[in-house]
Protein backbone atom coordinates (compact mmCIF):
# COMPACT_ATOMS: atom_id res chain seq x y z
CA UNK A 1 0.00 0.00 0.00
CA UNK A 2 1.46 3.31 -0.88
CA UNK A 3 1.43 6.41 1.23
CA UNK A 4 -1.39 8.21 -0.58
CA UNK A 5 -3.82 5.42 0.10
CA UNK A 6 -2.73 5.34 3.72
CA UNK A 7 -3.28 9.06 4.16
CA UNK A 8 -6.68 9.02 2.50
CA UNK A 9 -7.68 5.97 4.51
CA UNK A 10 -6.58 7.76 7.66
CA UNK A 11 -8.71 10.76 6.77
CA UNK A 12 -11.70 8.55 6.03
CA UNK A 13 -11.30 6.73 9.35
CA UNK A 14 -11.07 10.02 11.22
CA UNK A 15 -14.13 11.40 9.45
CA UNK A 16 -16.17 8.27 10.16
CA UNK A 17 -15.06 8.30 13.78
CA UNK A 18 -15.98 11.95 14.09
CA UNK A 19 -19.35 11.46 12.45
CA UNK A 20 -20.12 8.55 14.75
CA UNK A 21 -19.34 10.61 17.84
CA UNK A 22 -21.20 13.64 16.54
CA UNK A 23 -24.31 11.66 15.71
CA UNK A 24 -24.21 9.89 19.06
CA UNK A 25 -23.92 13.25 20.82
CA UNK A 26 -26.79 14.77 18.94
CA UNK A 27 -28.87 11.63 19.34
CA UNK A 28 -29.16 12.56 23.00
CA UNK A 29 -30.60 15.89 21.93
CA UNK A 30 -32.80 14.28 19.28
CA UNK A 31 -34.03 11.77 21.82
CA UNK A 32 -35.25 14.52 24.10
CA UNK A 33 -36.80 16.46 21.25
CA UNK A 34 -38.55 13.42 19.82
CA UNK A 35 -39.76 12.39 23.26
CA UNK A 36 -41.15 15.86 23.79
CA UNK A 37 -42.84 15.98 20.40
CA UNK A 38 -44.44 12.60 20.84
CA UNK A 39 -45.81 13.79 24.16
CA UNK A 40 -47.04 17.16 22.86
CA UNK A 41 -44.23 19.02 24.58
CA UNK A 42 -41.49 21.19 23.13
CA UNK A 43 -38.34 19.80 24.71
CA UNK A 44 -34.98 21.49 25.21
CA UNK A 45 -35.14 24.99 23.78
CA UNK A 46 -33.14 27.19 26.13
CA UNK A 47 -29.48 26.32 25.46
CA UNK A 48 -28.66 27.93 22.15
CA UNK A 49 -31.04 28.24 19.20
CA UNK A 50 -33.73 25.54 19.55
CA UNK A 51 -31.67 24.13 22.40
CA UNK A 52 -28.97 22.94 20.02
CA UNK A 53 -26.24 23.49 22.59
CA UNK A 54 -27.97 21.17 25.03
CA UNK A 55 -25.61 18.19 24.46
CA UNK A 56 -22.65 20.43 25.25
CA UNK A 57 -24.33 21.62 28.42
CA UNK A 58 -25.05 18.01 29.36
CA UNK A 59 -21.46 17.01 28.72
CA UNK A 60 -20.24 19.93 30.81
CA UNK A 61 -22.45 18.82 33.65
CA UNK A 62 -21.18 15.25 33.33
CA UNK A 63 -17.59 16.44 33.52
CA UNK A 64 -18.08 18.52 36.64
CA UNK A 65 -20.00 15.94 38.64
CA UNK A 66 -18.17 14.17 41.42
CA UNK A 67 -16.25 11.18 40.10
CA UNK A 68 -17.09 8.59 42.70
CA UNK A 69 -15.57 5.13 43.14
CA UNK A 70 -17.00 2.98 45.94
CA UNK A 71 -14.34 2.07 48.49
CA UNK A 72 -15.03 -1.65 48.25
CA UNK A 73 -15.09 -1.73 44.45
CA UNK A 74 -12.18 -3.13 42.49
CA UNK A 75 -10.90 0.15 41.20
CA UNK A 76 -9.35 -0.78 37.88
CA UNK A 77 -12.19 -3.00 36.75
CA UNK A 78 -14.57 -0.24 37.78
CA UNK A 79 -12.82 2.13 35.41
CA UNK A 80 -12.43 -0.52 32.73
CA UNK A 81 -16.18 -1.21 32.50
CA UNK A 82 -17.32 2.01 30.82
CA UNK A 83 -14.19 2.08 28.66
CA UNK A 84 -15.00 -1.38 27.36
CA UNK A 85 -18.60 -0.41 26.62
CA UNK A 86 -17.47 2.68 24.74
CA UNK A 87 -14.66 0.88 22.91
CA UNK A 88 -16.75 -1.98 21.59
CA UNK A 89 -19.49 0.39 20.52
CA UNK A 90 -17.03 2.51 18.57
CA UNK A 91 -15.21 -0.47 17.06
CA UNK A 92 -18.32 -1.88 15.47
CA UNK A 93 -18.81 1.22 13.34
CA UNK A 94 -15.63 0.52 11.39
CA UNK A 95 -17.01 -1.99 8.89
CA UNK A 96 -20.02 0.04 7.78
CA UNK A 97 -19.75 0.90 4.08
CA UNK A 98 -20.98 4.48 4.01
CA UNK A 99 -20.78 4.90 0.25
CA UNK A 100 -19.25 3.34 -2.81
CA UNK A 101 -15.80 4.82 -3.32
CA UNK A 102 -13.97 8.05 -3.98
CA UNK A 103 -11.78 8.46 -7.03
CA UNK A 104 -8.87 10.81 -7.49
CA UNK A 105 -5.68 11.11 -9.50
CA UNK A 106 -2.38 11.87 -7.81
CA UNK A 107 1.04 11.82 -9.52
CA UNK A 108 -0.60 10.42 -12.65
CA UNK A 109 -1.90 7.40 -10.73
CA UNK A 110 -5.63 6.83 -10.43
CA UNK A 111 -6.88 5.83 -7.02
CA UNK A 112 -10.21 4.38 -6.03
CA UNK A 113 -10.77 4.07 -2.31
CA UNK A 114 -13.93 2.69 -0.71
CA UNK A 115 -15.66 4.93 1.84
CA UNK A 116 -15.38 2.55 4.75
CA UNK A 117 -12.97 2.49 7.66
CA UNK A 118 -11.80 -1.04 7.05
CA UNK A 119 -12.89 -3.29 4.22
CA UNK A 120 -12.54 -6.86 5.45
CA UNK A 121 -14.29 -9.81 3.91
CA UNK A 122 -15.41 -11.18 7.28
CA UNK A 123 -17.23 -7.98 8.22
CA UNK A 124 -20.30 -9.71 9.60
CA UNK A 125 -18.23 -12.05 11.76
CA UNK A 126 -16.27 -9.07 13.00
CA UNK A 127 -19.48 -7.31 14.04
CA UNK A 128 -20.65 -10.37 15.92
CA UNK A 129 -17.34 -10.63 17.69
CA UNK A 130 -17.29 -7.00 18.73
CA UNK A 131 -20.96 -6.78 19.67
CA UNK A 132 -20.71 -9.84 21.88
CA UNK A 133 -17.74 -8.23 23.61
CA UNK A 134 -20.04 -5.33 24.46
CA UNK A 135 -21.60 -7.50 27.17
CA UNK A 136 -18.29 -7.40 29.01
CA UNK A 137 -18.51 -3.65 29.41
CA UNK A 138 -21.75 -4.04 31.32
CA UNK A 139 -20.75 -7.22 33.12
CA UNK A 140 -17.40 -5.89 34.31
CA UNK A 141 -19.01 -2.64 35.43
CA UNK A 142 -21.73 -4.43 37.36
CA UNK A 143 -19.31 -6.87 38.93
CA UNK A 144 -16.70 -4.31 39.88
CA UNK A 145 -19.23 -2.09 41.64
CA UNK A 146 -19.40 -4.67 44.44
CA UNK A 147 -23.10 -4.07 44.86
CA UNK A 148 -25.68 -6.78 44.57
CA UNK A 149 -28.12 -4.61 42.68
CA UNK A 150 -25.51 -3.69 40.11
CA UNK A 151 -24.53 -7.31 39.80
CA UNK A 152 -28.13 -8.39 39.30
CA UNK A 153 -28.56 -5.71 36.66
CA UNK A 154 -25.41 -6.82 34.91
CA UNK A 155 -26.49 -10.44 34.94
CA UNK A 156 -29.85 -9.51 33.53
CA UNK A 157 -28.18 -7.48 30.81
CA UNK A 158 -25.82 -10.30 29.97
CA UNK A 159 -28.51 -12.96 29.76
CA UNK A 160 -30.69 -10.67 27.66
CA UNK A 161 -27.90 -9.79 25.25
CA UNK A 162 -26.83 -13.37 24.84
CA UNK A 163 -30.31 -14.73 24.22
CA UNK A 164 -31.07 -12.10 21.61
CA UNK A 165 -27.71 -12.43 19.93
CA UNK A 166 -28.60 -15.97 18.89
CA UNK A 167 -31.75 -14.90 17.08
CA UNK A 168 -29.90 -11.91 15.66
CA UNK A 169 -27.23 -14.16 14.20
CA UNK A 170 -29.70 -16.71 12.90
CA UNK A 171 -31.80 -14.09 11.15
CA UNK A 172 -28.67 -12.73 9.53
CA UNK A 173 -27.59 -16.18 8.36
CA UNK A 174 -30.43 -16.19 5.87
CA UNK A 175 -28.91 -13.09 4.27
CA UNK A 176 -25.46 -14.61 4.29
CA UNK A 177 -26.87 -17.64 2.51
CA UNK A 178 -28.39 -15.47 -0.17
CA UNK A 179 -25.29 -13.36 -0.64
CA UNK A 180 -22.71 -16.05 -0.19
CA UNK A 181 -20.31 -13.65 1.47
CA UNK A 182 -19.49 -12.36 4.93
CA UNK A 183 -18.47 -8.94 3.68
CA UNK A 184 -20.89 -6.15 4.49
CA UNK A 185 -19.97 -4.42 1.24
CA UNK A 186 -20.88 -7.55 -0.73
CA UNK A 187 -24.22 -7.76 1.07
CA UNK A 188 -24.92 -4.15 0.19
CA UNK A 189 -23.81 -4.70 -3.41
CA UNK A 190 -26.23 -7.60 -3.69
CA UNK A 191 -29.17 -5.23 -3.10
CA UNK A 192 -28.47 -3.01 -6.09
CA UNK A 193 -31.98 -3.11 -7.53
CA UNK A 194 -34.87 -1.91 -5.44
CA UNK A 195 -36.93 -5.10 -5.22
CA UNK A 196 -33.88 -7.11 -4.23
CA UNK A 197 -33.52 -5.20 -1.00
CA UNK A 198 -33.38 -7.76 1.74
CA UNK A 199 -36.38 -6.27 3.48
CA UNK A 200 -38.46 -7.48 0.55
CA UNK A 201 -36.85 -10.88 0.28
CA UNK A 202 -36.55 -11.44 4.03
CA UNK A 203 -39.52 -9.78 5.74
CA UNK A 204 -39.54 -12.11 8.71
CA UNK A 205 -35.79 -11.96 9.12
CA UNK A 206 -36.02 -8.20 9.09
CA UNK A 207 -38.55 -8.08 11.89
CA UNK A 208 -36.50 -10.49 13.97
CA UNK A 209 -33.31 -8.58 13.28
CA UNK A 210 -34.91 -5.26 14.12
CA UNK A 211 -36.32 -6.53 17.40
CA UNK A 212 -33.06 -8.18 18.38
CA UNK A 213 -31.19 -5.00 17.51
CA UNK A 214 -33.44 -3.20 19.97
CA UNK A 215 -32.64 -5.80 22.60
CA UNK A 216 -28.92 -5.61 21.84
CA UNK A 217 -28.92 -1.86 22.32
CA UNK A 218 -30.81 -2.27 25.60
CA UNK A 219 -33.40 0.15 24.33
CA UNK A 220 -37.04 0.21 25.31
CA UNK A 221 -39.02 -2.10 25.25
CA UNK A 222 -36.00 -4.19 26.18
CA UNK A 223 -34.31 -1.84 28.65
CA UNK A 224 -34.39 -4.41 31.40
CA UNK A 225 -30.76 -3.97 32.55
CA UNK A 226 -31.85 -0.72 34.15
CA UNK A 227 -34.73 -0.62 36.52
CA UNK A 228 -35.28 1.79 39.34
CA UNK A 229 -37.84 -0.31 41.18
CA UNK A 230 -36.03 -3.62 41.34
CA UNK A 231 -32.40 -2.70 40.86
CA UNK A 232 -32.11 0.83 42.27
CA UNK A 233 -30.80 1.84 38.86
CA UNK A 234 -29.15 -1.14 37.25
CA UNK A 235 -25.62 -2.17 36.36
CA UNK A 236 -24.57 1.47 36.58
CA UNK A 237 -26.02 2.19 40.03
CA UNK A 238 -22.59 3.07 41.45
CA UNK A 239 -21.44 5.08 38.47
CA UNK A 240 -21.34 8.83 38.36
CA UNK A 241 -20.02 11.67 36.22
CA UNK A 242 -18.36 10.87 32.91
CA UNK A 243 -18.15 7.14 33.64
CA UNK A 244 -21.92 7.00 33.67
CA UNK A 245 -21.79 9.28 30.66
CA UNK A 246 -19.69 6.70 28.83
CA UNK A 247 -22.27 4.02 29.47
CA UNK A 248 -25.12 6.18 28.27
CA UNK A 249 -23.09 7.41 25.34
CA UNK A 250 -22.19 3.86 24.35
CA UNK A 251 -25.90 3.16 24.15
CA UNK A 252 -26.35 5.96 21.65
CA UNK A 253 -23.37 4.85 19.59
CA UNK A 254 -24.84 1.35 19.59
CA UNK A 255 -28.08 2.80 18.38
CA UNK A 256 -26.34 4.59 15.53
CA UNK A 257 -24.39 1.49 14.57
CA UNK A 258 -27.50 -0.69 14.72
CA UNK A 259 -29.39 1.75 12.54
CA UNK A 260 -26.51 1.71 10.07
CA UNK A 261 -26.54 -2.07 9.99
CA UNK A 262 -30.27 -2.31 9.61
CA UNK A 263 -30.10 0.01 6.63
CA UNK A 264 -27.03 -1.73 5.21
CA UNK A 265 -28.27 -5.28 5.62
CA UNK A 266 -31.95 -4.84 4.83
CA UNK A 267 -32.49 -1.50 3.13
CA UNK A 268 -29.85 -1.60 0.47
CA UNK A 269 -27.25 0.48 2.30
CA UNK A 270 -26.27 3.38 0.10
CA UNK A 271 -28.37 2.14 -2.82
CA UNK A 272 -31.38 4.06 -3.97
CA UNK A 273 -33.63 3.63 -7.00
CA UNK A 274 -32.03 4.69 -10.30
CA UNK A 275 -28.66 5.01 -8.61
CA UNK A 276 -26.66 3.62 -11.52
CA UNK A 277 -28.46 5.78 -14.07
CA UNK A 278 -27.88 8.92 -12.04
CA UNK A 279 -24.27 7.93 -11.42
CA UNK A 280 -23.44 7.37 -15.07
CA UNK A 281 -25.27 10.54 -16.09
CA UNK A 282 -23.19 12.51 -13.60
CA UNK A 283 -19.98 10.90 -14.83
CA UNK A 284 -20.87 11.75 -18.40
CA UNK A 285 -21.63 15.38 -17.70
CA UNK A 286 -18.98 16.19 -15.08
CA UNK A 287 -16.16 13.86 -16.09
CA UNK A 288 -15.16 10.51 -14.67
CA UNK A 289 -13.62 11.71 -11.43
CA UNK A 290 -15.82 14.63 -10.37
CA UNK A 291 -19.00 12.88 -11.46
CA UNK A 292 -18.13 9.72 -9.61
CA UNK A 293 -17.28 11.62 -6.44
CA UNK A 294 -20.51 13.56 -6.62
CA UNK A 295 -22.44 10.31 -7.05
CA UNK A 296 -20.60 8.96 -4.01
CA UNK A 297 -21.59 12.03 -2.03
CA UNK A 298 -25.23 11.46 -2.98
CA UNK A 299 -24.95 7.85 -1.82
CA UNK A 300 -23.48 9.06 1.44
CA UNK A 301 -26.41 11.40 1.98
CA UNK A 302 -28.94 8.72 1.08
CA UNK A 303 -27.35 6.27 3.46
CA UNK A 304 -27.46 8.80 6.26
CA UNK A 305 -31.07 9.51 5.48
CA UNK A 306 -31.83 5.85 6.10
CA UNK A 307 -29.74 5.82 9.26
CA UNK A 308 -31.51 8.88 10.62
CA UNK A 309 -34.84 7.32 9.91
CA UNK A 310 -33.91 4.28 11.94
CA UNK A 311 -32.51 6.35 14.78
CA UNK A 312 -35.82 8.16 14.78
CA UNK A 313 -37.58 4.81 14.71
CA UNK A 314 -35.64 3.66 17.76
CA UNK A 315 -36.82 6.75 19.63
CA UNK A 316 -40.32 6.50 18.30
CA UNK A 317 -40.61 2.97 19.66
CA UNK A 318 -39.03 3.97 22.94
CA UNK A 319 -41.74 6.52 23.61
CA UNK A 320 -44.53 4.25 22.42
CA UNK A 321 -44.13 0.82 23.92
CA UNK A 322 -44.03 -0.18 27.55
CA UNK A 323 -41.17 -2.41 28.62
CA UNK A 324 -41.40 -6.16 28.81
CA UNK A 325 -41.49 -8.15 31.98
CA UNK A 326 -38.32 -10.17 32.34
CA UNK A 327 -39.93 -13.57 31.85
CA UNK A 328 -41.79 -12.26 28.80
CA UNK A 329 -38.49 -11.04 27.45
CA UNK A 330 -36.90 -14.44 27.86
CA UNK A 331 -39.94 -16.20 26.40
CA UNK A 332 -39.92 -13.93 23.40
CA UNK A 333 -36.23 -14.48 22.81
CA UNK A 334 -35.99 -18.21 23.28
CA UNK A 335 -39.45 -19.52 22.47
CA UNK A 336 -40.42 -17.21 19.64
CA UNK A 337 -37.50 -15.61 17.90
CA UNK A 338 -35.05 -18.48 17.86
CA UNK A 339 -37.51 -21.04 16.41
CA UNK A 340 -38.81 -18.45 13.95
CA UNK A 341 -35.35 -17.54 12.78
CA UNK A 342 -34.44 -21.19 12.35
CA UNK A 343 -37.62 -21.63 10.30
CA UNK A 344 -36.59 -18.59 8.33
CA UNK A 345 -33.20 -20.14 7.57
CA UNK A 346 -34.78 -23.41 6.49
CA UNK A 347 -37.31 -21.74 4.20
CA UNK A 348 -34.66 -19.47 2.74
CA UNK A 349 -32.50 -22.50 2.04
CA UNK A 350 -35.37 -24.28 0.32
CA UNK A 351 -36.09 -21.15 -1.67
CA UNK A 352 -32.47 -20.94 -2.80
CA UNK A 353 -32.59 -24.57 -3.86
CA UNK A 354 -35.55 -23.87 -6.14
CA UNK A 355 -34.33 -20.42 -7.14
CA UNK A 356 -37.17 -18.55 -5.52
CA UNK A 357 -35.91 -15.55 -3.60
CA UNK A 358 -39.16 -14.50 -2.00
CA UNK A 359 -39.77 -17.85 -0.31
CA UNK A 360 -39.92 -16.43 3.22
CA UNK A 361 -43.05 -14.52 2.30
CA UNK A 362 -44.75 -17.89 2.61
CA UNK A 363 -44.12 -17.86 6.36
CA UNK A 364 -45.45 -14.35 6.63
CA UNK A 365 -48.57 -15.20 4.63
CA UNK A 366 -49.22 -18.34 6.66
CA UNK A 367 -48.90 -16.34 9.86
CA UNK A 368 -51.22 -13.60 8.67
CA UNK A 369 -53.83 -16.16 7.58
CA UNK A 370 -53.60 -17.95 10.91
CA UNK A 371 -53.98 -14.68 12.77
CA UNK A 372 -57.02 -13.63 10.78
CA UNK A 373 -58.61 -17.04 11.24
CA UNK A 374 -58.05 -16.99 14.98
CA UNK A 375 -59.64 -13.55 15.20
CA UNK A 376 -62.64 -14.69 13.24
CA UNK A 377 -63.21 -17.72 15.41
CA UNK A 378 -62.57 -16.10 18.77
CA UNK A 379 -65.59 -15.38 20.94
CA UNK A 380 -66.23 -11.65 21.21
CA UNK A 381 -66.53 -11.70 24.96
CA UNK A 382 -65.78 -14.48 27.36
CA UNK A 383 -68.74 -15.50 29.46
CA UNK A 384 -68.09 -14.53 33.03
CA UNK A 385 -70.15 -16.15 35.74
CA UNK A 386 -72.20 -13.44 37.38
CA UNK A 387 -72.05 -13.07 41.11
CA UNK A 388 -75.49 -13.45 42.58
Amino acid at each position, binding site marked *: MDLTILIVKGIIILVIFGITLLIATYSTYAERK*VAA*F*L*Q*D*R*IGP*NRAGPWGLLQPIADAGKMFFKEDFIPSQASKWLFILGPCLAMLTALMSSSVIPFADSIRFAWNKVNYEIPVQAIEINIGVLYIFGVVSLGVYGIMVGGWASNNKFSLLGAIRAASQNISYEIALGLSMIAILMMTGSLSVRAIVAEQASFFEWNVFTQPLGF*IIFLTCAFAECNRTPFDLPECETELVGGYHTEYSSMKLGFYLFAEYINMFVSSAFISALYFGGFHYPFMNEIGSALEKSLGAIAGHNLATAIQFVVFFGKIFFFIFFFM*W*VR*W*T*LPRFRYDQLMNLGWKTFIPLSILNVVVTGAGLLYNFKYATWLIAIV*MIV*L*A*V*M*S*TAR*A*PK*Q*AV*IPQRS
Partner: protein
Amino acid sequence: MQLTNRSKQVSNKEMTLAEKMYLPAVVGGLAITIRHFFRKKPTIQYPEVKKYLGPVYRGHHILKRDEQGRERCTACGLCAVACPAEAISMVAAERKKGEENLYREEKYAAVYEINMLRCIFCGLCEEACPKQAVYLRHDRMVPVFQERDEVVYGKEQLVEKMDDRYIRVANSEVKATPTEPSLTRAAT
Protein backbone atom coordinates in the same frame (compact mmCIF):
# COMPACT_ATOMS: atom_id res chain seq x y z
CA MET B 1 -73.89 -2.46 41.43
CA GLN B 2 -73.50 -0.07 38.59
CA LEU B 3 -72.22 3.36 39.53
CA THR B 4 -71.75 4.86 36.08
CA ASN B 5 -72.76 3.78 32.62
CA ARG B 6 -69.15 4.00 31.55
CA SER B 7 -67.99 0.97 33.49
CA LYS B 8 -66.56 -1.89 31.52
CA GLN B 9 -66.72 -5.51 32.44
CA VAL B 10 -63.34 -7.01 33.11
CA SER B 11 -62.65 -10.07 31.05
CA ASN B 12 -59.69 -12.39 31.00
CA LYS B 13 -60.52 -14.05 27.74
CA GLU B 14 -57.86 -15.89 25.82
CA MET B 15 -55.97 -13.69 23.39
CA THR B 16 -56.34 -14.51 19.74
CA LEU B 17 -53.25 -15.30 17.72
CA ALA B 18 -53.30 -11.86 16.15
CA GLU B 19 -53.18 -10.34 19.61
CA LYS B 20 -50.53 -12.79 20.76
CA MET B 21 -48.37 -11.90 17.79
CA TYR B 22 -48.06 -8.47 19.36
CA LEU B 23 -47.07 -6.79 16.11
CA PRO B 24 -50.47 -5.36 15.09
CA ALA B 25 -50.75 -3.75 18.51
CA VAL B 26 -47.24 -2.36 18.15
CA VAL B 27 -48.10 -0.81 14.81
CA GLY B 28 -51.28 0.64 16.30
CA GLY B 29 -49.32 2.21 19.12
CA LEU B 30 -46.76 3.65 16.76
CA ALA B 31 -49.52 5.19 14.69
CA ILE B 32 -50.95 6.90 17.73
CA THR B 33 -47.65 8.38 18.85
CA ILE B 34 -46.66 9.60 15.40
CA ARG B 35 -49.92 11.48 15.18
CA HIS B 36 -48.94 13.29 18.35
CA PHE B 37 -45.55 14.08 16.85
CA PHE B 38 -47.15 16.37 14.29
CA ARG B 39 -49.77 17.83 16.56
CA LYS B 40 -49.68 21.49 17.54
CA LYS B 41 -48.05 21.87 20.92
CA PRO B 42 -50.22 23.41 23.64
CA THR B 43 -47.16 24.79 25.43
CA ILE B 44 -47.02 28.50 26.21
CA GLN B 45 -43.45 29.77 26.26
CA TYR B 46 -44.02 31.34 29.63
CA PRO B 47 -41.55 34.09 30.35
CA GLU B 48 -41.78 35.37 26.80
CA VAL B 49 -45.47 34.78 26.20
CA LYS B 50 -47.98 35.46 28.92
CA LYS B 51 -51.57 34.49 29.08
CA TYR B 52 -54.46 36.68 30.16
CA LEU B 53 -55.48 35.08 33.39
CA GLY B 54 -58.89 36.66 33.72
CA PRO B 55 -60.22 39.48 35.87
CA VAL B 56 -60.29 37.37 39.01
CA TYR B 57 -56.60 36.57 39.08
CA ARG B 58 -54.95 37.61 42.36
CA GLY B 59 -51.50 39.05 41.83
CA HIS B 60 -49.53 42.00 43.07
CA HIS B 61 -51.05 43.94 45.98
CA ILE B 62 -51.89 47.57 45.54
CA LEU B 63 -52.96 50.29 47.98
CA LYS B 64 -55.45 52.49 46.18
CA ARG B 65 -55.66 56.23 46.09
CA ASP B 66 -58.89 58.01 45.36
CA GLU B 67 -59.56 60.35 42.44
CA GLN B 68 -57.82 63.26 44.14
CA GLY B 69 -54.76 61.22 44.90
CA ARG B 70 -55.45 60.68 48.60
CA GLU B 71 -54.60 57.31 50.15
CA ARG B 72 -57.76 55.48 51.00
CA CYS B 73 -56.36 53.27 53.77
CA THR B 74 -57.32 54.34 57.25
CA ALA B 75 -55.12 51.87 59.10
CA CYS B 76 -58.05 50.10 60.69
CA GLY B 77 -56.15 46.83 60.71
CA LEU B 78 -59.02 44.71 59.43
CA CYS B 79 -56.93 43.34 56.60
CA ALA B 80 -54.21 42.30 59.00
CA VAL B 81 -56.80 40.55 61.15
CA ALA B 82 -58.34 38.83 58.13
CA CYS B 83 -55.01 37.69 56.76
CA PRO B 84 -54.63 33.99 57.49
CA ALA B 85 -50.93 34.08 56.84
CA GLU B 86 -50.31 37.09 59.08
CA ALA B 87 -48.45 38.78 56.31
CA ILE B 88 -49.68 42.32 56.89
CA SER B 89 -48.38 44.68 59.51
CA MET B 90 -48.86 48.41 59.84
CA VAL B 91 -48.22 51.41 62.05
CA ALA B 92 -51.03 53.94 62.26
CA ALA B 93 -50.49 57.68 62.46
CA GLU B 94 -52.69 60.79 62.82
CA ARG B 95 -53.15 63.10 59.91
CA LYS B 96 -51.58 66.55 60.55
CA LYS B 97 -52.96 69.85 59.35
CA GLY B 98 -52.10 70.44 55.72
CA GLU B 99 -51.98 66.76 54.85
CA GLU B 100 -55.62 66.60 53.78
CA ASN B 101 -54.59 66.19 50.17
CA LEU B 102 -52.48 63.16 51.08
CA TYR B 103 -54.76 61.06 53.23
CA ARG B 104 -58.50 60.68 53.04
CA GLU B 105 -59.27 60.02 56.70
CA GLU B 106 -57.90 61.38 59.95
CA LYS B 107 -55.95 58.21 60.55
CA TYR B 108 -53.60 56.72 58.04
CA ALA B 109 -50.95 54.01 57.76
CA ALA B 110 -47.53 55.51 58.26
CA VAL B 111 -46.02 52.11 57.64
CA TYR B 112 -47.83 49.41 55.72
CA GLU B 113 -45.93 46.22 54.99
CA ILE B 114 -46.82 42.93 53.39
CA ASN B 115 -44.42 40.06 53.67
CA MET B 116 -44.61 38.46 50.23
CA LEU B 117 -43.01 35.26 51.44
CA ARG B 118 -45.88 34.75 53.84
CA CYS B 119 -48.71 35.91 51.61
CA ILE B 120 -50.68 33.13 50.01
CA PHE B 121 -52.62 35.45 47.67
CA CYS B 122 -55.93 34.39 49.12
CA GLY B 123 -57.46 37.82 48.66
CA LEU B 124 -59.03 37.94 52.11
CA CYS B 125 -57.42 41.31 52.80
CA GLU B 126 -59.16 42.68 49.74
CA GLU B 127 -62.48 41.35 51.01
CA ALA B 128 -61.97 42.58 54.55
CA CYS B 129 -61.12 46.17 53.68
CA PRO B 130 -64.06 48.51 54.41
CA LYS B 131 -62.44 51.40 52.52
CA GLN B 132 -61.70 49.62 49.22
CA ALA B 133 -58.07 50.44 49.81
CA VAL B 134 -56.29 47.18 49.20
CA TYR B 135 -56.59 45.17 46.01
CA LEU B 136 -54.72 42.35 44.37
CA ARG B 137 -53.95 43.27 40.80
CA HIS B 138 -55.23 40.87 38.18
CA ASP B 139 -52.70 41.97 35.63
CA ARG B 140 -49.39 41.92 37.46
CA MET B 141 -47.60 39.23 39.36
CA VAL B 142 -45.18 39.73 42.18
CA PRO B 143 -41.75 39.62 40.60
CA VAL B 144 -39.23 36.94 41.49
CA PHE B 145 -37.14 37.73 44.54
CA GLN B 146 -33.40 37.68 44.39
CA GLU B 147 -32.63 38.82 47.94
CA ARG B 148 -34.16 38.08 51.31
CA ASP B 149 -34.57 41.77 52.19
CA GLU B 150 -36.63 42.36 49.07
CA VAL B 151 -39.52 40.27 50.23
CA VAL B 152 -41.20 42.73 52.60
CA TYR B 153 -43.10 45.21 50.47
CA GLY B 154 -43.44 48.65 51.99
CA LYS B 155 -45.57 51.56 50.89
CA GLU B 156 -43.20 52.44 48.03
CA GLN B 157 -44.05 49.20 46.29
CA LEU B 158 -47.70 49.10 47.28
CA VAL B 159 -49.25 52.53 46.96
CA GLU B 160 -50.39 53.16 43.44
CA LYS B 161 -48.91 55.85 41.28
CA MET B 162 -51.36 58.41 39.99
CA ASP B 163 -50.11 58.03 36.44
CA ASP B 164 -50.64 54.27 36.56
CA ARG B 165 -53.99 53.76 38.18
CA TYR B 166 -55.29 50.27 38.54
CA ILE B 167 -58.74 49.57 37.20
CA ARG B 168 -60.10 46.07 37.21
CA VAL B 169 -61.98 45.19 34.06
CA ALA B 170 -62.80 41.93 32.41
CA ASN B 171 -61.36 42.18 28.95
CA SER B 172 -60.80 39.04 26.98
CA GLU B 173 -59.37 41.15 24.17
CA VAL B 174 -56.14 41.39 26.12
CA LYS B 175 -54.33 38.19 25.27
CA ALA B 176 -51.29 38.42 27.47
CA THR B 177 -51.15 39.63 31.02
CA PRO B 178 -50.43 43.27 30.42
CA THR B 179 -47.48 44.42 32.39
CA GLU B 180 -47.13 47.80 30.73
CA PRO B 181 -49.29 50.55 32.22
CA SER B 182 -50.55 51.52 28.79
CA LEU B 183 -52.24 48.18 28.33
CA THR B 184 -53.97 48.42 31.67
CA ARG B 185 -55.41 51.81 30.94
CA ALA B 186 -56.35 50.90 27.41
CA ALA B 187 -58.64 48.33 28.90
CA THR B 188 -60.84 50.94 30.58
